[in-house]
């Protein structure tokens, strides 16, 4: 009997896992030699759809298994053989993809891509809810907090505040009525760790949060998850129902007098709700506007009651810490940043996906060893960490060991874990403009410096990328950055200038090229580039002329074509359409 385990997170489904699964059912339903199971994403999103073949306790992982390959795949398995070329991870020997896994240490994500997230029995069989049982039966509330403090776990949402201390504050806060929040409003563009965790192992997060509730003395918990993550919401709701049915959640958990009720709230889409006071306002049904702190939520949170708020990954680490002890967790990582961190790799990298690595790993190791380098054998120019609150770290700093302090020293932040890689074709001024357009859109408008200041910065950056920048623009940008940092109430405003500050610090020459030479070195900014046909390569296939929406690309069949620079809108459609690489950007 062979078990076929298919990666069925939304990334896998987007890559075609649904069609693959349908085909498997079509071929195998009623066949007792095979059992089909669903699981989350094992992190190798770049090779999905992925299927594990489990036979005699050995796991063979197949990648790129689109529906059209399923027949051949099943034929081979039915004969008792394998298609070696399609195997991406082999139980007996290393493969070309092994290096993606070698440096990873999976504590928070160990179940993702292994268990069926929609089946509580699978979670329990993998050791699930044993930490909760240990806590309720053998530990008092302070013991739990002491273990979490000993682990050195810092908040994985971005700020990196000690999780144990946060719990202590909430526990010590006077009052009987207390709340827990799990922040799954993953708003950073370029990050998908929370989505993958909630889709792949919702019970792990529920267990961690419930342990926290016991420690701080909370009775009610809220999951705040982006409405853009429908599958995560669905699986989370299902998991809560299953946990309640089994006595792991709800009234009198595991027969004790500890009760904890969970609710799921779908975030209606506001980046600022990642900030905890804004998040609380949103849970209360209001506009998500931040307020001044103190009082901190630990003393005055939801409805004015003590509230503890952590993000998805933070809670996902808790079951391991309780099961194995704080010391087991703190043996990984650096002096100040213990344990592991989950990162989402995306952008111009060969292997995009989700990884969990010990703190202290260098960016180079992530790019080259795990990520398999930059696409098209390109050179890594920078990595963007921390989303709109973070910054771009240039390649000469990629030997930096990742921890909260080191990354902050570069001007970026570890953030929630999104890493977007950039190559020579990425314009850093355009990246700064991109992030500012995001913050302008997402600023809640409460603080003048954030509301108006970011808008002015965006206008300047738009001017520069349009080739209309002046020498005064750079000092003015710096002045505005300084003012916005000082004049904003919450993290959104205080960090909004980071993408500009880091690109100015490391890629000032690109700003200057735009301003002084009216050139975009990355050949990205439309106002500063032209499209041209390379005569030697053009076959006169007429595809560019057919594709051009404004009639700028013209020519006779089998004759070299040309592009009229006056008419050209630099949409780049012709370049994408050309099969002979005959169109270049200058």
């Amino acid at each position, binding site marked *: 009997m062979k078990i076929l385990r298919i990666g069925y997170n939304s990334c896998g*489904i*987007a890559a075609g896992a649904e069609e693959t699964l349908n085909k498997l059912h079509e071929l195998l339903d009623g066949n007792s030699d095979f059992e089909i199971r669903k699981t989350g994403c094992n992190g190798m999103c770049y090779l999905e759809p992925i299927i594990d073949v489990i036979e005699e306790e050995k796991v063979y992982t197949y990648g790129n298994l689109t529906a059209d390959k399923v027949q051949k795949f099943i034929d081979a398995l039915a004969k008792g053989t394998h298609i070696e070329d399609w195997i991406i991870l082999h139980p007996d020997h290393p493969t070309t993809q092994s290096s993606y896994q070698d440096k990873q240490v999976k504590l928070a994500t160990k179940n993702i891509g292994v268990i069926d997230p929609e089946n509580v029995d699978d979670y329990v069989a993998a050791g699930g809810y044993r930490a909760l049982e240990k806590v309720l039966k053998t530990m008092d509330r302070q013991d739990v907090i002491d273990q979490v403090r000993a682990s050195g776990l810092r908040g994985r949402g971005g700020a990196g505040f000690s999780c144990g201390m946060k719990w202590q504050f909430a526990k010590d806060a006077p009052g009987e009525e207390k709340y827990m929040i799990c922040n799954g409003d993953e708003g950073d563009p370029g990050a998908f760790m929370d989505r993958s965790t909630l889709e792949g192992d919702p019970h792990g997060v529920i267990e961690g949060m419930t342990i926290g509730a016991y420690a701080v003395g909370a009775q009610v918990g809220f999951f705040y998850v982006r409405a853009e993550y429908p599958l995560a919401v669905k699986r989370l709701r299902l998991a809560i129902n299953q946990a309640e049915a089994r006595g792991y959640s709800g009234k009198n958990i595991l027969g004790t007098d500890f009760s904890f009720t969970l609710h799921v709230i779908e975030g209606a889409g*506001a980046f600022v709700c990642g900030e905890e006071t804004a998040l609380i306002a949103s849970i209360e*049904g209001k506009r998500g506007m931040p307020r001044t702190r103190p009082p901190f939520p630990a003393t005055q949170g939801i409805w004015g009651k003590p509230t503890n708020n952590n993000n998805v990954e933070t809670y996902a680490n808790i079951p391991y810490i309780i099961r194995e002890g704080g010391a087991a967790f703190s043996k990984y990582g650096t002096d100040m940043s213990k344990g592991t961190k989950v990162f989402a790799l995306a952008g111009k990298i060969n292997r995009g996906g989700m990884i969990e690595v010990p703190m202290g790993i260098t960016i180079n190791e992530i790019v080259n060893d795990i990520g398999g380098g930059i696409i098209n054998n390109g050179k890594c120019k920078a990595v963007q960490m921390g989303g709109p609150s973070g910054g771009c770290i240039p390649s000469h700093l990629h030997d930096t060991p990742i921890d909260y302090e080191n990354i902050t020293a570069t001007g970026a932040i570890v953030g929630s874990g999104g890493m977007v890689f950039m190559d020579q074709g990425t314009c850093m001024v355009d990246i700064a403009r991109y992030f500012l357009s995001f913050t302008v859109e997402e600023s809640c408008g409460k603080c003048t410096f954030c509301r108006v200041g970011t808008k002015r910065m965006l206008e300047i950056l738009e001017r520069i990328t349009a080739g209309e920048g002046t020498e005064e623009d750079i000092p003015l940008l710096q002045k505005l950055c300084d003012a916005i940092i000082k004049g904003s109430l919450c993290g959104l405003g205080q960090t909004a200038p980071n993408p500009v500050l880091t690109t100015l610090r490391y890629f000032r020459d690109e700003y200057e090229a735009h301003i002084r030479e009216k050139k975009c070195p990355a050949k990205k900014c439309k106002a500063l580039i032209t499209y041209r046909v390379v005569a030697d390569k053009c076959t006169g296939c007429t595809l560019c002329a057919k594709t051009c929406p404004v009639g700028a690309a013209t020519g006779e069949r089998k004759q070299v074509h040309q592009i009229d620079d006056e008419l050209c809108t630099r949409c780049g459609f012709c370049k994408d359409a050309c099969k002979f690489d005959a169109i270049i950007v200058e």
Partner: protein
Amino acid sequence: MEQLDFSYVDEVLERYRGHKGTLITVLQQVQAHKGYLEKEALERVARSMGVSTASIYGIVTFYAQFRLTPVGKNLVRVCHGTACHVQNADGLTEAIEGALNVKSGETTPDMLFTVESVACLGCCSLAPVIMVGEKVYGKLSTDKVRKVMKEYKKKEAE
């Protein structure tokens, strides 16, 4: 005058009556019925929950999820997350606008397509991506996305 049926709003209101802090959830569920929030529906929610229509309007315009205008049959969401941005999401928007003859943020006059830009769909490893309804299309180029749009247009014409 045409009699409009707002019983769907009342059903949602009934479900959450007496629960505090549920205004956003109520609005989400009301919107789920028609894909947008009608003015009369907002007024009904306001009356029932004891808040002003103005403050509901404040909430609705604060969060990206809420709409005040009808949405087309096919909602085309173009991801403009960081990973998609560095892989030419702007180009995709332009190509889609051209293929459907509509601007981003707008709906075609035949109410078949609404195109919008969204912050991040969380499928970064497949960038650049778009979503049509619930279906995600990844690893796109301007060329490929135009073909996807052509297929949808063909399907709608049938």
